[in-house]
């Protein structure tokens, strides 16, 4: 089943595999009918996520309907030392939801109720399986929205967003999940149910909520979340800026931010990304440019005009060749459709690995140029489409998954690019997570002492290391069980 030979998982626990039938029977007793999957055909959809380079069938998949059922399954697994892999919609790009042979998957796809919408306090409380877009849609008629907007927002769940601390294009102004999360109900490895935070802006005690957000399913399973809602701006307008080189576009981004202008979003696409997205979405992107910025401004007409005027002035200094303002809501929607479907559209023409390093803005042009050189050295192609305003890069390395040599080269190129990001003062992952994909690069960013401290914190939640145990931390250097 294994496609990539580069990624090791923990050796399956023999004691668990040997009891497979008994475990399945016990789980069936804990759950209502229709909430347990154990036949091979039924398990196949759970064998991977959006990081398709690795596949593995789990021991079983549970699909609980309530927090109490999640707690029952976790209590059982905790008691018998059975690994657990939490799963939202399975859209992880770093393998965060990929199971292992001896693991019980806990999928939250049946927990999709919106529990409370409190517009006066601007909060929504939802079950973990509610999709990101559902929250915004539920409050749109009243003029509110939920800010973090990952490209997979039609499918990805709020539970998964919390697990990975997901971002999105509009995070430049509004922050990522951790900045918009007020409270959770969650289940610990031993079935204990705890509640953290709530409708108040600050919670008491340690910021466990902040630690859980982005913990990649290793500290527990979130079953309910209270998130912050925001009032929709008066207006919003994406504008396209075309440049004759990526360097110029990158320098323009750094100068806009440096001038104290913070648009809602600044998205970058290079020529390959433009053609891929345009072919798919017909968004009207200019085809005669080497690099494109989508800059979104918002507010009243006057505010948008004032901000745009300043940005245009800066763009001209950097040799902008095309400026195109969206003239209607339909056009604006198309511009975003093109951007948000970039990964899917790329998947139509080639297999790809998506990198996610973040670099300081002053390094943007340098890292873009170096990325091109690295990929060329491996004889591969790259499309760059990313959140430029906060330096969060997404080079898509194109390759052929059926050619093992090609795949190995792509993986090596990816690792080189991530090292480049760290060496430029950045980090391995800005919003997708470590998962299995970047796990073995962690020591490039952290010292063993740094990782030891993180693993110690992890052990306060999960002393037996049963929660998503093969992810995030290199398999070597872990504390003895």
């Amino acid at each position, binding site marked *: 089943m294994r496609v990539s030979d580069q990624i090791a998982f923990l050796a399956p626990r023999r004691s668990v595999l040997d009891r497979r039938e008994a475990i399945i029977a016990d789980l069936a007793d804990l759950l209502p009918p229709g909430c347990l999957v154990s036949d091979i055909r039924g398990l196949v959809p759970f064998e991977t996520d959006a990081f398709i380079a690795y596949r593995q069938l789990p021991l079983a998949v549970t699909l609980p309907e309530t927090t109490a059922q999640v707690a029952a399954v976790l209590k059982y697994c905790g008691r018998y030392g059975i690994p657990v892999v939490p799963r939202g919609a399975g859209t992880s790009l770093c393998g965060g939801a990929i199971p292992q042979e001896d693991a019980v998957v806990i999928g939250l796809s049946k927990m999709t109720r919106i529990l409370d919408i409190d*517009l*006066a*306090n*601007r*909060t929504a409380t939802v079950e973990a399986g509610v999709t990101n877009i559902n929250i915004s849609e539920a409050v749109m008629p*009243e003029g509110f929205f939920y800010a973090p907007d990952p490209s997979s927002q039609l499918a990805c769940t709020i539970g998964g967003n919390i697990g*990975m601390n997901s*971002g999105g294009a509009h*995070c430049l102004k509004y922050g990522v999940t*951790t900045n918009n999360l007020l409270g959770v109900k969650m289940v610990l490895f031993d079935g*204990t149910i*705890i509640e953290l935070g*709530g*409708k*108040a*802006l*600050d*919670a*008491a*005690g*340690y*910021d*466990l909520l*902040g*630690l859980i957000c982005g*913990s990649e399913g290793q500290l527990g399973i979130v079953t309910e979340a209270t998130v912050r809602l925001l*009032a929709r*701006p*008066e207006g919003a307008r994406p504008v396209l800026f075309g440049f004759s080189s990526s360097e110029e576009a990158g320098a323009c981004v750094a100068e806009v*931010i*440096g001038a*104290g202008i*913070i648009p809602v979003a600044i998205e970058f696409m290079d020529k390959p990304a433009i053609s891929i997205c345009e072919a798919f979405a017909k968004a009207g992107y200019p085809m005669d440019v080497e690099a494109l910025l989508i800059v979104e401004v918002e*507010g*009243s007409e*006057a*505010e948008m005009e004032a*901000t745009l005027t300043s940005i245009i002035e800066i763009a001209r200094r950097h040799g902008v060749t095309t400026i195109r303002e969206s003239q209607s809501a339909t056009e604006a929607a198309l511009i975003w459709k093109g951007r948000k479907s970039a990964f899917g559209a790329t998947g139509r023409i080639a297999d790809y690995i998506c990198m996610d390093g*973040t670099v*300081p*803005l002053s390094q943007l042009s340098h890292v873009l140029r170096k990325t091109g050189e690295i990929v060329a050295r491996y004889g591969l192609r790259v499309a760059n489409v990313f959140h430029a305003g*906060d330096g*969060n890069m997404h080079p898509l390395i194109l390759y052929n998954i059926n050619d093992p040599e090609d795949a190995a080269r792509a993986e090596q190129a990816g690792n080189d690019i991530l090292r480049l990001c760290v060496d430029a*003062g950045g980090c391995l992952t800005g*919003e*997708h997570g470590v998962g299995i994909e970047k796990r073995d690069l*962690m020591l490039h*960013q*952290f*010292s063993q002492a*740094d*990782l*030891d*401290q*993180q693993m*110690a*914190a992890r052990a*306060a*939640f999960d002393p037996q290391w049963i929660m998503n145990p093969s992810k*995030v931390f290199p398999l070597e250097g872990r504390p003895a069980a």
Partner: protein
Amino acid sequence: MTVDFEPQSEEEAAEIVRAVAERSARLKLVGGGMRGIVADVAADAVLSTRRLCGIVSYNPAEMTMSALSGTPVSEIEAVLTERRQMLAFEPMDPRGILGLTGEPTIGGVFAANVSGPRRLSAGAARDHLLGIRFVNGEGAVIKSGGRVMKNVTGLDLVKLLAGSHGTLGLLTEVTFKVLPLPPASATVVLSDLNDAEAAGAMARVMAMPYEVSAAAHLPESVRGRFLGGALPDGPATVLRLEGLTATVSARAEKLAQACSVAGPVAVLEDGASRKLWREIRDVAPYADGTERALWCISIAPTSGHQLVAALRLETGVDAFYDWQGGRVWLRMEADPEAALIRRFIKALGGGHARLIRASAAMRAATPVFEPEAPAVAALSARVREKFDPKGIFNPGLMG
């Protein structure tokens, strides 16, 4: 306060911590001498960060700054102001309410997660903290986070250490996000609303697209103590707008128009607006030179006034509201009444109350921090044990 250790480098700090841990002694961590809530920590020795001082790097174009933890906030703000930037979470200066003369440090601000009025729109101190270096209870130097805006690499120890009041580690260096200083500020003042009406008005305003950056309600009992009594008569519900000069006045006009159905409306221009919010930030009405018990309460915004109303039936309190009503500054006329306040908060859907000021005797008899639910308290204790196995840092603080 006698200080036993004043390390001048991270290395020296780590050595001190290792030596203290070896003796299993207990260490009180302080910044620039803000007595605050750590005053009551009983320890064998005091370590001050004030000589871990200085801005390590500042890149205005990337909107980030790194500073050693003992750097005075005033020094950081002076450097930022020169480049027209700011700490957007608007940390308060607690010297007025605590009657202190020390120098708040940037490490202290993050260790206590101190946020002011703009927390409502721009996030808390913890939301702006990008990276940290700290010494854990075993004397190991640990780093977490970095200097980029988006970073999900590994567990977010940055958030955990923010607001941990020096109980998990000794912060040695902090890297944080800074934002452009808004060129203009204006405040719409809506007069004559009672607490409940004000809560409703603030909720309606926050649902409008005018980007109100801060919303507070100043009841009649405190109104006269702001701006030297220059606010219009009656309780004042104040709504701040910030941004480019032209757009701020346009938004102020629209907002004033929208509010005018609720009562008399006035607009404070730039200077007065900035002064008012500094006073709200620093809790000016209760900087009264007394030790009367002062609580800072965090609760759902629409519940703040209900809490105060319920308390008034039982005891003597004075209060005003920030964060759309969700932060209540509450001064007790007599005893702190911790149990009563916390029971009412629970009944109103949850939140927490922290005792900011009280006489030494009252502090000794009152849990300063909100007690947590048993399962959460147990988890927090396990976390603490993983950072400071021998319990050397600020013993007794935070559970």
